[in-house]
């Protein structure tokens, strides 16, 4: 148990160390060369991009969260599910859609019969793509917070003379802040760590520059920039912690009221509200899928050397399955280990692993590539090392589903089992585990789905020739094989998005 808990945590800690070592190697002083105006521009550009994406997402997500929880919007539950779905679409599929629709030789140019299209590469294209696909990072926590708020607070405000809307803005809205801040952190990290969309849309944020340097064999330079990206990321996380240092507890003692909080009548606003929901769902879901279907049907250039679709699906599913299984083992070990000691250092692996979520995939991949190529060449570009990278990146997702479920189980259950004759392990499996299975499996499925779509780590670390749907889609889009790329997109949607839909629908139903 301790080994399974500490090993992944130590790996997370070792990553910056490896980057530092690698950056200090070589003739040129890669770390020293960081202090240039160019680097400064890069930092500003990346942070500005993250801020723009977060801002756009908040503008979309907060109204949607409000509409789907606290108003009499027709079909609230339907919209809640549909509007969460874009999260399942990988950013590079969004980028591919933009390119295939608006790009040179793309769908729109074709339909209009024009050659010149407005330039959407760079900042605007990348921002639009990430806002439309990433806003659920804000939508989901804010929605959950709105559902959890103690309804008696608003009722007190009503009794004290506020209107329904006034009661909402004066009591509930301030309590939503921690969830909003958490959502903003998630989407800012999403934007900072995104590789697929920014590289396809040719916007030079950290990840793209790091990849370019790595690709042009400036390994110390790539390591130095990766290290800087880690620092910037940690800065963003610290900012978030600081912003919610005085976190108000919004959970009701009684728990959410069955049937949910009181609803506000939309009246004449019903139509614009529905149009807004429809617009977002169209842009973020229907357009990407529609464009992909169009290109898959119309064909475009065929690719001679491409791997057959079945093989790509097989590779993708294999990697995702291994990652999910490993995550399910480690997450139980870490959680159990942490729960045995009240606070203190036993909770440390759990905390450290959360840092993994803040580490961009390309940074984890680069660090492990250095580690593999220099100290353990036998592991370099092998499946185990790739799984480790994906594990570090996605473990928090499994933990996030399991932890609340574990916290809900009173200690007295296992203790009862102990006094009834079970040893500690048996008591866990007989008393607690049956109550955890669902969350545990859900966590595993989440890891599977995200690992299946992962791009940068897989791109850098996959065994030679072991192409996945994501890596192939990336290659094909960059080379303009829109038709072939479209079938890969649809396959990714089938493997990663459809199960996600089922999972979301199912958990929504269980919550109800």
């Amino acid at each position, binding site marked *: 148990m301790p080994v399974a808990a500490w090993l992944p945590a130590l790996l997370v800690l070792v990553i910056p160390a490896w980057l530092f070592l690698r950056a200090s190697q070589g003739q040129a002083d890669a770390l020293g060369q960081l202090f240039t105006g160019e680097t400064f521009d890069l930092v500003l550009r990346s942070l500005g991009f993250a801020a723009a994406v977060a801002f756009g997402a908040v503008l979309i997500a907060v109204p949607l969260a409000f509409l789907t929880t606290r108003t009499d919007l027709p079909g609230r539950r339907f919209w809640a599910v549909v509007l969460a779905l874009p999260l399942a679409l990988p950013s590079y599929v969004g980028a591919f859609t933009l390119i295939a629709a608006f790009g040179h030789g793309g769908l729109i140019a074709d339909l209009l019969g024009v050659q010149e299209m407005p330039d959407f590469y760079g900042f605007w294209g990348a921002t639009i793509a990430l806002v439309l696909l990433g806003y659920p990072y804000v939508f989901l926590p804010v929605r959950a917070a709105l559902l959890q708020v103690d309804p008696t607070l608003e009722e007190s405000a009503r009794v004290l003379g506020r209107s329904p809307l006034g009661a909402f803005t004066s009591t509930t809205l301030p309590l939503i802040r921690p969830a909003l801040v958490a959502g903003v952190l998630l989407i800012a990290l999403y934007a900072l760590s995104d590789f697929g969309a920014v590289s396809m849309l040719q916007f030079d944020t950290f990840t793209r520059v790091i990849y370019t340097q790595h690709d042009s064999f400036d390994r110390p330079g790539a390591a130095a920039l990766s290290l800087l990206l880690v620092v910037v990321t940690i800065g963003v996380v610290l900012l978030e912690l600081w912003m919610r240092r005085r976190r108000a507890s919004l959970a009701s003692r009684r728990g959410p009221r069955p049937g949910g909080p009181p609803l506000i009548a939309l009246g004449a606003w019903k139509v614009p509200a529905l149009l807004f929901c429809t617009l977002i769902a169209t842009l973020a879901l229907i357009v990407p899928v529609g464009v992909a279907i169009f290109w898959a049907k119309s064909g475009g250039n065929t690719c001679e050397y491409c791997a057959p679709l079945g093989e790509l699906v097989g590779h993708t599913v294999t990697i995702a399955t291994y990652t999910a299984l490993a995550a399910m083992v480690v997450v139980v070990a870490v959680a159990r280990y942490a729960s045995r000691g009240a606070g203190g250092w036993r909770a440390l692996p759990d905390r450290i692993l959360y840092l993994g979520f803040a580490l961009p995939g390309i940074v984890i991949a680069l660090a492990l590539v250095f580690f593999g190529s220099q100290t353990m060449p036998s592991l370099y570009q092998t499946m185990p090392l790739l799984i480790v990278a994906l594990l570090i990146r996605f473990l928090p997702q499994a933990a996030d589903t399991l932890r609340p479920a574990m916290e809900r189980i009173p200690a007295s259950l296992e203790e009862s089992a102990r006094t009834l004759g079970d040893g500690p392990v048996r008591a866990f499996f007989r008393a607690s585990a049956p*109550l955890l299975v669902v969350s545990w499996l859900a966590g595993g499925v989440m890891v599977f789905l995200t690992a299946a779509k992962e791009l940068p780590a897989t791109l850098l670390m996959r065994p030679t020739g072991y192409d996945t749907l994501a890596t192939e889609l990336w290659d094909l889009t960059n080379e303009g094989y829109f038709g072939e790329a479209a079938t890969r997109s649809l396959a990714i949607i089938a493997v990663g998005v459809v199960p996600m839909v089922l999972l979301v629908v199912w958990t929504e139903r269980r919550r109800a």
Partner: protein
Amino acid sequence: MSGASAIQVQAITKSFGSTRVLGGVDLEVSGGEIIALLGPSGCGKTTLLRLLAGLERPDEGRVALDGAVVAEGGTFVAPERRGVGLVFQDYALFPQRTVGDNVAFGLRRLPKSERPARVAAVLERVDMTGYGDRYPHELSGGQQQRVALARALAPKPGVLLLDEPFSNLDAGLRRRLRMQLGALLRDLGITTVFVTHDQDEALGLADRVAVMVGGVIAQVGPPGEVYERPMSEAVARVVGEVNLIAGSARGGTVTTALGTFQGAGPEGAVEVLFRPEHLGVCAPGEEGARAIVSAREYLGREAHLLVDCGESRDLAVRCEAAAEIAAGDTIAVCSRTSSPLVWFAAGRVE
């Protein structure tokens, strides 16, 4: 078994971090006895119960069950090997198992063929026959408690431990369930330790009450003894409502504004303990102490008064419900007890 107590606790200490929860606890329980651990929250009573169950390890001291040491120094017997039944405050029924499966949970060592009969017998014992296929959430609080009891009793433990057994039940139900539980436990003859902060529960159900204050057992004795003859003011307050009236003691006699009484306590300036039922409103012609009524509460059978009597403020006094006394009235307070009283040295800061 002769000579060995069912439970023997010696010089137990326990700290959590820098907080000392138990500071040297001694307790001996004979077979078949029902003991209440009574004390305010934070006094360490639940920790002591968990130490008996083996869910906590003592820092120092010794715990023996039926003469066998289960915790002392390096020796520690895990809870699953202690043969102790524990009913949690929240009952801790396994929500995914039926009542029958809950009760059968601890019967792994019993041959499979014998389990159904044992489950049925125990459920009958707690008057829950026919509920075996229900799930815990389908039961009322009182029924859940009985299932938890059945589950703890099913493996035939040597000792039964109950943590705040009635705190999750409606006030109206408590007394009846308490009396039923007392009858059942005495019928089974099982050694029982239960934790409570409710004096009625402790006095009503236990053979002996161990009063815990600040991590130690301040006094152990039969209910009547700890109620009538508490060894300190702190114990007196834990066990019941307290009125202290100034007096002057010499030998076995104390003189107060209410008269002169026999009893026990230190010499000199003292404070005499009167339970509310020890005080009453004087009958016409009776001589008592003048007091001003500050509040009156009508309770149907009787009324409770708060009165200020000279230096003694907020004394609790019982009177007949029909008595026409209102806040602000001046009355005369008389003693209503003929049994010996206890008193404590006056002026102690506590």
